[in-house]
């Protein structure tokens, strides 16, 4: 039986980079379907998608990154996909990894495969403060679960159908990556990492401003602790 895989691209104000992102996927991973989730962008993301006849799910209200990605999971689950990968619409991620990541995932029988910038420390390594935050989450997860995740905030994550079902049911609203990893590790799922090289974003600014990063740290720490209590 053929394996059905889909790329989930959450997009909020990505009018300049969305087409390139899709072209990258169609070129380097033609056997992957894709779907863009337009999270109520205030720019022309939607009309650009329509113009180029891209597959797009249009959210009627802004749900935040977590809600947008979850929409993609739900769509993938309902349409019978076996593997889904979350993929940024701003050009940071490289579609050439999609195929090898899926092969590796099948071979290792993993439930989730995280594209990590830090396994081989190549490419854009994020900025100083952000790296500190990533190391902090990594240490926290190691402390609580015993497993080392080098890039817990990576937005490039492939999951299988089991996890699709779990995430369709419940997924955090903002800054969802670290805590959702802990959630599935807690239920005994196999999480692995795969070395990738990420680029600096082509367009737009990161959703995480300095002030927000404080909120990010507190929110995710609390969420991870609460997640551990659920056991």
């Amino acid at each position, binding site marked *: 039986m053929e394996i059905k895989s889909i790329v989930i691209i959450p997009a909020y104000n990505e009018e300049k980079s969305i087409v390139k992102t899709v072209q990258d996927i169609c070129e380097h991973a033609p056997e992957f379907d894709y779907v863009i989730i337009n999270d109520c962008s205030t720019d022309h993301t939607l009309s650009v998608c329509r113009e180029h006849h891209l597959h797009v*799910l*249009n*959210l009627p*209200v802004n749900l935040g990154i977590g*809600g947008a990605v979850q929409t993609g999971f*739900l769509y993938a689950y*309902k349409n019978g996909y076996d593997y889904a990968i979350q993929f940024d619409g701003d050009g940071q991620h490289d579609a050439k990894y999609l195929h090898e990541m899926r092969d590796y995932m099948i071979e290792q029988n993993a439930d989730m495969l995280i594209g990590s910038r830090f396994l081989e420390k190549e490419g854009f390594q994020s900025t100083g403060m952000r790296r500190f935050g990533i190391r902090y989450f990594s240490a926290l997860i190691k402390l609580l679960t015993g497993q080392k995740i080098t890039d817990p905030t990576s937005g490039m994550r492939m999951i299988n159908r089991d996890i699709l079902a779990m995430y369709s049911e419940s997924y955090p*609203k903002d800054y969802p990556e670290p805590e959702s990893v802990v959630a599935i590790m807690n239920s005994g799922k196999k999480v692995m990492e795969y070395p990738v090289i990420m680029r600096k974003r082509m367009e737009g600014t990161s959703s995480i401003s300095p002030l927000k990063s404080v909120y990010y740290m507190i929110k995710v720490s609390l969420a991870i602790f609460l997640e551990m209590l659920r056991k």
Partner: protein
Amino acid sequence: MSLYLRILLIVMSFLAAVYAVHQIRKSQMKIENAIYWFMFILIVVVLSIFPELAMILARILGIESPVNLIYLAMIFLLLVKVFSQSIKISQMEYKIGILAQESAIMKKKAEENDKESKQ
């Protein structure tokens, strides 16, 4: 409690009740959500009309001034209300999320069906 404070509380309660009824009649508030405020107003009015009640309660709880008891009770009731509102907001966000996601997926499906029937 001074007479002025009692009068003030009663007048304010009356105004609040009128405003609440007005909002209900304009369909800006559901009766289910207004019940809490009517009970709140009722408690304030009763304590203002019979300050002896506040005095007795204050003595039992070891609170020096009855008016402090009223403040304490109000703060407590408001905290309970705010906390339950937080829960309600979370539930509503959750429900809105599901509705938005389902509608986006259904719309996409409809578009695809449209395309197919045109071909």
